[in-house]
């Protein structure tokens, strides 16, 4: 009799564990889906032949920003965390978007991938590229 009871408890525990795990998985999937697109500004300086991408990531710590180049894409991901263990309920008005940020930018042939430079200041990620040397603007002397 005691064995049956034990067995039942075991099954119960397993089911419970399964549910908890399932919920965790579902949460993870949803947080991966719920990603935000940061605002970006794209500019080109003709004189210096540099390209600049500004990406607004206010309230994000530098360590939580990831920049990579995959194939012909520049990929920026970031996680914006609520500070000081504050929760959503602690706010009266909460317009900021927390969680994952993701954006990919297509890099044209004229962009020199190796020249990438990234810095973060005033809540903004600033990425600059040079133009590929052979495609840079040059003045030709007329003989």
């Amino acid at each position: 009799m005691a064995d049956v009871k034990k067995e039942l408890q075991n099954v119960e525990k397993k089911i419970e564990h399964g549910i908890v795990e399932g919920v965790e998985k579902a949460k993870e999937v949803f947080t991966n889906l719920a990603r935000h697109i940061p605002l970006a500004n794209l500019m080109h300086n003709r004189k210096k032949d540099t390209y600049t991408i500004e990406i607004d990531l206010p309230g994000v710590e530098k360590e939580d920003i990831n920049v990579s180049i995959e194939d012909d894409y520049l990929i920026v991901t970031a996680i914006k965390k609520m500070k000081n263990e504050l929760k959503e309920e602690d706010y009266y008005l909460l317009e900021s978007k927390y969680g994952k940020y993701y954006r990919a930018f297509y890099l044209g042939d004229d962009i020199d991938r190796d020249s990438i430079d990234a810095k973060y200041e005033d809540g903004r990620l600033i990425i600059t590229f040079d133009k590929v040397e052979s495609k840079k603007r040059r003045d030709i002397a007329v003989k």
Partner: protein
Amino acid sequence: MNIIRGYNPFAELEAIREQFNRVLNQASEVKRDVDFIPVVNTREADDAYYIEVELPGVKKEDINIDVNEDTLTISGERKVKEEHKEDNFYKVESVYGKFERSFSLPEDVDTNKIEATSKNGVLEIKIPKVQKVEKAPKKIEIK
């Protein structure tokens, strides 16, 4: 130049709706010469009220905080950086120009002790509450 991968149309719709609500909510206060309304979070702690304002790409020197009677106003301007003045902007999503947002202050605050700090493009304003002087219960003797 930018082709978005992992595009979530609903996120964008949501953002539009929120921006729209914000504009509507602020409609009575918005002045005609304001270019954008910053994103704001507000909360209350035991000792103070906090206002967080997202201002990526705005220099500290270009932000003003004024208190007029019971209204606190944050205003300023997002300027194009000197090194990008001559650039061609071929995409601008974060609005440049003037911004403003006002808040009515609760009664129990000490406007002389308001502090502001700026980190990662987020301005945090701390508005301390008036320290209540605990009055010991006084017994009146009947003569």
